[in-house]
Structure formats: structure tokens, C-alpha cells
């Protein structure tokens, strides 16, 4: 057998409590393969606080500090400061939060940490709703989606929050989006992040078959189609928010195919789907303009 393209050592074990086809577990597995065993995790309330397993068991071979929903970034900042006081500069501290804990509940702690440019990695694994508590909408839920709090005709009418822009406005050294469908790219980005000092924000797209009313076997396939239909573009923002890079080397696929495979979008009419697709194209053009105008976006030196 050839040498594997991704690292062999496993820092996540079998027996965890994730649903069938869970994208969040793939994200964790890849991220830890990239970061290695000298990693300490901070987990606010999110799917992963359940997936990991009940006390006194854990399915991860790295230390985890469970913390309150809104406190991931601040706890991580404190943990890093504590490690530094003890002379440990090698261990990387990663806050690992869901989209609810990042886009909504944890955003002030995250903004504070980013503004102070704390030396932490903050990873948001994005399954586009509060899945763990029963599929309630978050500000990451995309326009058009069904959730238990946006049921029936009251499907979500507001677009997904532009989190990458918010983070870029904090002038932090490294921001990237990644997808579980592209593990090599994901691992490369986490490795890159590990080598950088300051706040690094990673946004990982992680399908949730349960919350998306999706057949579990299609989970990776959906993550891939999210990228190729431009629903979730792969973006890297470096140089303290100045330089934007959008990955374009793929065969485009229709937004409609992506939506229609998932139960959460199946209520949408042709017209509504067209509006959704238009919004996605608009966002794509916006990203391209950010990429083109990279040099003119002012950022702070630190």
C-alpha cells in the first residue's frame, strides 16, 4: 500500500456517540490528525460535548476542557495563558465550537479574543443549526432551510451570517474555510494554522444527516456539492484580513441539486430555489470582488 496522504495516527477513537454519517466527527478526526497530540481542546456546549462520551470516558486522546456555551474563546484564551505561565509554548489550544456557539452565543467572547489577537485556534464546525438540542435555527442556518423553529411555511427567510467577513474585520493573521469533503485541503489549513501565532479562525463545513433530513451515506457527497455549487466556498484570508483567496478549480454543480437532496430544503418552489441560487451567486461574486480588491482592504499591523 502507498504512503497515506493524510497522517496515520488516530487521536479519535471508535465508540463515540455521533449519529450515522456525522460530519462533525470527520472534522475532528482530520483536525487532530493535522494538529497532533500536543493539542488541548476547549469545548462549549455543542454536539461534540455529547459525541465525546459520558464522564469518565472520552473518545479523544487529547485533553478537553468542557466549558459554558458562550465561553469557548475566553476559556481558550485563559488556558493558553496558563500554559504559557507554566512554560509550555508547544501545546496548541483550540476552541472547538458549533455554529450556534460561534455565530450566536459565543460571538462576543470570540470577538474579544480576536481583537486581543489571543494565541489560539478557534474552529467552528458548522452544521447550520443547533443540532444537539433539537435542530433549532442559528444565524448560520442558510436561507430557505427548515428547522424546528422555522417550520413549514416559516422556513428561514434570512441569509446565513457572513462570519468570515466579521473575522476578517478583526485583522487576525489567519482565517480559512474548509470542508470535510476535502480532507487534504482541510489538513493543510490546520497545519498552516498551527504554525502561525495569534488568533486563527477556521470554519469547517460539517454536514448533519439528522438535522438536514439527509441519508447518512450522502453526508460527504453533500459537503462536496456545497463547495462545487458555491454554497460553501473554500476561502483563505491571510495578511491580517487583507489578502483573500477563493478556490475555483472545480467543476460547478447546480445549487438545486444540492438543495433537493436534503429534506430541509425540499419544500422550496422553483421560484424560491431560483432566489436561493441567486443569493449564492451574489455571495460568490462578492467573494471574488474581495479577492480582486485584496490589496485595498485596510488591516491593522500587530
Amino acid at each position: 500500500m502507498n504512503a497515506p496522504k493524510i497522517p496515520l495516527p488516530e487521536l479519535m477513537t471508535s465508540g463515540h456517540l455521533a449519529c450515522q454519517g456525522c460530519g462533525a466527527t470527520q472534522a475532528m478526526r482530520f483536525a487532530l490528525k493535522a494538529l497532533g497530540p500536543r493539542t488541548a481542546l476547549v469545548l462549549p456546549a455543542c454536539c461534540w460535548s455529547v459525541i465525546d462520551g459520558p464522564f469518565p470516558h472520552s473518545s479523544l486522546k487529547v485533553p478537553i476542557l468542557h466549558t459554558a456555551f458562550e465561553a469557548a474563546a475566553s476559556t481558550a484564551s485563559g488556558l493558553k495563558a496558563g500554559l504559557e505561565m507554566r512554560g509550555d509554548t508547544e501545546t496548541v489550544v483550540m476552541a472547538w465550537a458549533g455554529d450556534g456557539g460561534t455565530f450566536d452565543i459565543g460571538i462576543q467572547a470570540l470577538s474579544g479574543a480576536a481583537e486581543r489577537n489571543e494565541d489560539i485556534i478557534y474552529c467552528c464546525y458548522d452544521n447550520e443549526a443547533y443540532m444537539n438540542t433539537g435542530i433549532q435555527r442559528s444565524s448560520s442556518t442558510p436561507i430557505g432551510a427548515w428547522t424546528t423553529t422555522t417550520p413549514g411555511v416559516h422556513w428561514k427567510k434570512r441569509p446565513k451570517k457572513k462570519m468570515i467577513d466579521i473575522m476578517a474585520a478583526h485583522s487576525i493573521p489567519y482565517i480559512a474555510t474548509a470542508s470535510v469533503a476535502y480532507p487534504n485541503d482541510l489538513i493543510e489549513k490546520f497545519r498552516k494554522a498551527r504554525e502561525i501565532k495569534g488568533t486563527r479562525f477556521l470554519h469547517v463545513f460539517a454536514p448533519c444527516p439528522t438535522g438536514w433530513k439527509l441519508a447518512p451515506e450522502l453526508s460527504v457527497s453533500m459537503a462536496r456539492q456545497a463547495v462545487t455549487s458555491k454554497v460553501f466556498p473554500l476561502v483563505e484570508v491571510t495578511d491580517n484580513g487583507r489578502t483573500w483567496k477563493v478556490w475555483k478549480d472545480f467543476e460547478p454543480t447546480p445549487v438545486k441539486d444540492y438543495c433537493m437532496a436534503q429534506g430541509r430544503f425540499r419544500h422550496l418552489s422553483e421560484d424560491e430555489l431560483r432566489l436561493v441560487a441567486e443569493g449564492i451567486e451574489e455571495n460568490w461574486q462578492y467573494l471574488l470582488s474581495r479577492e480582486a480588491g485584496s490589496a485595498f482592504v485596510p488591516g491593522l499591523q500587530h
Partner: protein
Amino acid sequence: MGEKITFKSYKEMPICAMSGADMTYNLTGSWRNVRPYYDFKVSPCRLGCPAMENIQRYIFLLTQEKYEEAWRELMEANPMPSVTGRVCFHPCMEKCTRKDFDQAINIPAIERSIGDRGLDNPGWMKKAPATKKETVAVVGGGPAGLSAAYYLARRGYPVTIFEADAVLGGTLRWGIPEYRLPNDVLDRVVAQIVGSGPITVKTGAALGRDVDLAKLEKEFAAVFVGVGLSRSRPLGVAGEEGRGIERGLDFLRRVNGGEPVNPGRSVAVVGGGNTAMDVARCARRAGAEVTVVYRRTMNEMPAIKDEIEEAEHEGVRFRFLAAPKSIERGASGPLTVVFQQMKLGDPDESGRRRPVPDGDATFTLSVNTMFTAIGEEADAAPFGKLLECDGNLIATKGEWGETSRKKIFAGGDVATGAASVVEAVAAGRKAAERISRMLSGEPEPAAEETGTISIENINTAYFTKGKRLLVPRIPLDEALAGYREIHTGYDDRMLRREADRCFSCGVCNFCDNCWVFCPDVAVRRLEAEYEFDYDFCKGCLVCVIECPRCAISTREEGK
């Protein structure tokens, strides 16, 4: 499997909420209702190959840079890849799944590269010792006979090949010009086969003239007859015997023997098969203006499509729906041939539409030479008395080449009528296997697995569209200046590039996707395979979808 920690009292608990063991006590395999399992299929190319070459496997070995193993895999099914890689009509490519994505893999070019590598590394072929006492006679040293001899000799049977000509090769030597199959390549292929085991060659021994089939049947434990088709079919037109008219095969034999030929300025070739194409192209090389006249249309031509294209490329002209009607010749100078215009009527027994005269329409051609290449037939005289025949051909039962005599087997064109090199090779191998089973009492093999896949089973997201890498060729003027081989073959880089295009349909090639994408870490990556850990596999089936090549199947639990 890990242990589950249970605390009997608070005193056993750690001072803060801290984990003490992993989660592997929790056997999540109990959640599963559908089970994935590795289930390799037969790639469609293999089913398309008359010799059942394991194409997927040898291409996979190439991508691993295991050249010798690739060559061994190929030689299991075909002892002359350097020949078939050059002259085969490659039905495998018609079946290639990649054809429905971008373009089929260039399988013959890959086959040729592997075969040539085997010729360049004589150490790869280790001579098999004579381990059996039963001896086998092989009559005919063409592709069928050489193939039968090879597979018998590799099993340790002493083989004697009886060949009518002075050298081995048969139709490969006399029927295929050097620009497609150079003599030195053929010589090396023949030498490799003859040197592969206990093979004795008796040349100048024609069946019926020097060798008697009934005598061979007595002297040898088994006999394989693969004498091919030796007689050109006559046109059935008055005046076809005489100056200016030659059998195409005779002409090719002279050309391939290195004899100088001069068919004159203007040449007509009657026929639409490979022989007609080869004759036309050789006549082009001898400086003639050549017109191929065929009684049906381009669509019905039995010649390999590549050969027709090459002939057109080299300036051979075609006239369809015409057949010679009469020949007029003076004491010297060009002949005048009158051709009857034809049209297509009802389908005949071959399924092609039968040409019938189109009224009285005729045209004439003035030619220096007209070659006839309308097919060959067997001469049944040497075997007709002993063996049951089907017309002039030896009647065989099933795929193993059994004839009406228990000890005599037959294969190749003499049993099937005009077919292809690869079919002859396959027939030789199958007869050899059957003979070996008869002599050693081995049981019949289990029926071949034929479960295959198609483009719908391929996850095309993992592949990028591209083009087939064509084999480089020499310029047209150089090609027409002599009999130099037209195609120069792949170099290592090209070979690797084309091999990397293979989908590896239905068979694992260790791409790691199942292992990488398993959310439950339930795929074990072992030395030479993957293994599902059913203690933990939750049955999400992500691996089934993400396997690019459909090497994983599913089964409902409890059924």
C-alpha cells in the same frame, strides 16, 4: 475493546470531572442495520477482452511501478502482449467505463509497453522445467499454436511444435506487415515463448505433407491443431488467374520476406478486411496509387477501424459497393477491370446486409495490378478424414477446443474461421488448460465471476476529465518511405500518465477513501487491504458512496 469504568462510590471518583478511559467499550456496531463489505467486481474491460486479460490489475500494478508483476499478470492471460498491443482490435476499449466519462484508456498502448518491457528484461522469464511425462504436439506455429505451447510448457508438459514454414509466427509473420509488427519484435516474442519451457520446434513440417494427424494422436498424449487458414478465397471471375492479378496474401508474404515488389503505378485491391488494408498500404509503400474496392460500404468493412483510418491517412482511396465483373488484358500493359455497381439487400447469416447487383451499372478501372483479398479458407484435406468438420473448419465443442477425437483439440482460425489474433491466443490458452486438466485429472475450474459495474457506479467527483494519450507516430512521409514501424510506443512517463487515468472499476486500488471518510474510525488500514471493524461500524455507508470505484457492496443485517 476498552473497559467501561463504573464508580461504586463517590470516593472512587477523581477530584474533578476527568476522563479515565476511551469510548471503545461502547460497541456502536449494534446501531447498524446495513453492513458494508468489500466486494470486488470484474472490470468491464476484462469482460470485453477475448483473452480475459486482467487489465485493471496490471494497470494498477503499473501505477505502483511494479513493472515485473504487471508483466507476469499480463502473461497469465496472453503470452504475446508485444504482438497484441500492436495489432489487436482492442474490444476492451469499447467496454472501458472511462469511455462514458471522457475517453477510453489506451489499453493496447499500455499492453504493448508491458510486453516490450518483458522482452527487454529476459531475466523475467524463468524457464519452466519439464515436470510432466505426458507430451503434447502442437500443430501450427501461429498465435493459437504458440499460445497453447506456452501454457502447456509453463505447466511442465514437454511440447513439440510442428510448423509448415521455416520459421514460427504463422499469420503474424506472413500476414501482418512490418510497419504494424516488426519482424524483430516477433522474433523476440517467439524466442521468449520457445524459451519459456520444454518446447521443441520442428519447422518445415506441414500437416498432411510431412506430419500425419493420426500418427501424432498415437505418439503424443494430446494434440492441439492451430493451423489457421491457408488458402485465399478465389474471386470467381473469369481471367483471375494470370498476369497482373495476385492473391493479397502472396503479396504480403513477399513483402514481409523482404522481397522487392513492384506492383506498378496503379493498383486495385478487392476486399474490405485487414488483409486488404495491409495489401493496400504495402502497395502505397511500393509507390502505387491504390484504390480499395469493396462490395459493401465502410460500415460493413471487417477491417479494424484504426487500420482503415491509417490507410486513408496514407492516401489509399476507397470505392464502395462494387465488385469485379470481368477482366480484360492484352499481351502487355495495364489490365482493364470492369466492376459491377452493387447495393445493399437483406441481411445475410453474418447479420451484415448482403450486396446485390445494382441493375446494369458498371465502371472500369485500368490497373497495373489487382490484388484479391476477399478472405481465406481452411484446407480441410490434412484433418478432414479424422476429425468432424464444419465446412472446411474443424468442428469444436464449447470454449475449450474439444474436437470429435478425445485427444485432439483445435483452436484459432481453423476452428472459428477468420477471426483475430487475440481470439486465437485465447483459444490456445483455453485448449492448453483443458488438455492439462485432462492429463492431470484436475477438477474443472469454478465458473468465472462476471459481476461488473458501469459509469453509474463510479463516483466521478474523484476524476478530472482528460484525453486519451495517443501513441506517438513517425511522420507520414517517413512512414510511406519504407516499412518502419509507424507507432513508436510510450515512454515511461507517458505509460504512467495513461495508467493513472484508469478508474480501476470495481476493484480496490488503495485510494484510502473508505478509511479517510469513516466517521467512526471503523475501517482498518492494513498492509495490503482494508478491513471493516464491525464492532464499531454504524452502517452510515459513507464509504460505499465515497469509494470512487464501487469496490464496496452492502447487505442488510439479519438477512
